[in-house]
């Protein structure tokens, strides 16, 4: 078990390192004047030469990388040319709202999606299964931005019950905050919910096919006991990994949802920066997003190791 933890930690660190390398290379090697990484203004040749020296763009790539990575490790992600503020400050200001939104969506997806999958598997072929499966299958086909737009039309304009945009901290005005979050959270939660329902169903069905379930039946145990103790416990193990997989999806979805609902979060920051070619923010944002994903995968794997006795006791 200890060796498992250590191995996973090392893997995470290596992955993060490689991500920095990839991001660095992608940013430097793609077409275009490398100076545009640092500024969006039009420059005179002299200004350009000055800036190149200042940012060390004439140095060999390896030197550039080491100086960049040492900044990053100290928390310095550069300065945004379009907004004139340090990137880490911009991200820190906005990340909280995204995490708030994202966590709500993830929780909603889990508490609706997983039980739906379990019900569908245990009532296979009956109407509960058909309904849940159909809902889940359609759920993974819905474009998030479109759903947002349609919901805005229905609830904000037609029925006038919800605000069409904006974000308020729940600490400031809980009621307004909730109203503003209902639509974005539902939009963001739909795909994870549907995906989890589908995967839970197939995981449970896979477990139901196993020999040890046949043994459980042969022991004359009640259906409820079998489901609760034998099926669900085994079936949930792969689902944990799946929950981890939802984190990058939610980050991706947040970009869209925050744009549609004008929520000033991390996702919208990335979006705006992409449009204005603010590469410093994009670069920093990619690093932060990837770090979140790696961390969540690590947490998930550790949980997995803790729950599956085959890993715990080897």
């Amino acid at each position: 078990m200890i060796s498992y933890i250590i191995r996973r930690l090392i893997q995470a660190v290596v992955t993060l390192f490689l991500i920095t390398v990839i991001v660095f290379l992608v940013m430097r090697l793609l077409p275009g004047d490398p100076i545009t990484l640092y500024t969006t203004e039009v420059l005179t040749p002299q200004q350009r030469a000055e800036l190149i020296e200042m940012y060390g763009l004439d140095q060999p790539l390896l030197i550039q990388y080491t100086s960049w990575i040492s900044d990053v490790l100290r928390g310095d992600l550069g300065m945004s040319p379009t907004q004139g503020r340090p990137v880490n400050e911009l991200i820190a200001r906005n990340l909280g709202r995204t995490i708030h939104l994202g966590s709500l969506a993830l929780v909603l997806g889990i508490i609706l999606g997983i039980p739906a999958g379990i019900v569908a598997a245990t009532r296979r072929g009956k109407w509960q299964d058909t309904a849940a499966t159909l809902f889940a299958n359609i759920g993974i086909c819905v474009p998030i931005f479109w759903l947002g737009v349609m919901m805005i039309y229905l609830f904000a304009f037609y029925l006038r019950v919800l605000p069409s945009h904006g974000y308020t901290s729940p600490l400031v005005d809980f009621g307004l905050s909730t109203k503003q979050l209902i639509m974005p959270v539902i939009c963001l939660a739909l795909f994870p919910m549907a995906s989890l329902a589908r995967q839970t169903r197939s995981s449970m069905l896979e477990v139901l096919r196993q020999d040890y379930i046949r043994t459980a039946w042969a022991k004359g145990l009640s259906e409820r006991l079998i489901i609760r103790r034998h099926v669900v416990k085994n079936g949930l193990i792969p689902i944990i990994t799946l929950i981890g997989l939802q984190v990058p999806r939610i980050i991706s979805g947040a970009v869209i949802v925050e744009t549609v609902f004008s929520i000033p979060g991390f996702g919208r920051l990335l979006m705006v920066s992409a449009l204005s070619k603010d590469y410093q923010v994009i670069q920093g944002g990619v690093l932060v997003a990837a770090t979140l994903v790696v961390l969540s995968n690590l947490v998930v794997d550790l949980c997995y190791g803790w729950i599956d006795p085959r890993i715990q006791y080897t």
Partner: protein
Amino acid sequence: MTFLLKVDNLKTRFKTELGLVKAVDGVSYYMREGEIIGLVGESGCGKSVSQLSVLQLIPTPPGEIVDGEVVFEGCDLLKFSANSPEMRSIRGGKIAMIFQEPMTSLNPVLTIGQQLTEMMESHLNMNREAATKQAIELLNRVSMPEAARRIAAYPHQLSGGMRQRVMIAMALSCNPKILIADEPTTAVDVTTQAQLLELMREMVVHFNTSLMIVTHNLGVVARYAQRLYIMYAGRIVESGTTKDIFANPRHPYTIGLLASVPRLDEPRGRKLVPIDGLPPTLINMPPTCAFLPRCAYRVEKCQHEPWPELKLTDGQHYTSCYVDTREK
């Protein structure tokens, strides 16, 4: 003479995308108290399915028990639905079954202790403490070393042989009248095989349980079973005492089986004679004898007549063949 279990004309079918499979096509047998019976046949002949049908463990959309009676202690079990409390109390409580693959037949996320005690808590209404004590006792009885410690172990920490012992312990935990062992030794090595079979015989004697060994391995039943049923393509083709069948096999299939197995008591240099051909697919079978294509004793009659019924030849020995194979 009252039978503990009498199965009469059991028929189980499966609807598959390739057609209707008559996995069990009119199987009848009986068991008495304290007997050890062998059900022998190759893969796909329906022997496992027949036992699963007794306990109604057949997955029911593709499968269906369409006919027959399973009379246990005077009561036809097929009258009860598969999920009924009556069947549930029979399973594990009165008739227990152990399966072939010890690797996958135990739940990997529960300790052995939990898997042992849940049966006793369920059937015998014991509390956790008493059940745990009993579980340790059972593990000792099946010669599991360090039973008290192993109670908290997970299946993956045990070897195949030990897992099979756990399965046996589990099966016997509620003192069933019948233990069905479906290919209990196929997945373990030869030495462990012998140990497990000895163990099962001991248990049978100690608990006065009847034992049904389902296997394709004649060697296994030769030593331990008192009576044999030979199965082919969903039906019983020969039945009798073990001694009798080994000494005077009557059905061509049985003869073929015995000829293809090496024996210590036969002259050196005798060639092993495999049975020609392949086992039949059980879909859309013709009404004639299923062994016909591979039979060395076939006569004209076999081509036209339907598969023969089991006929008494002598003593308790039955066979389903038109030909008197003693003449060849």
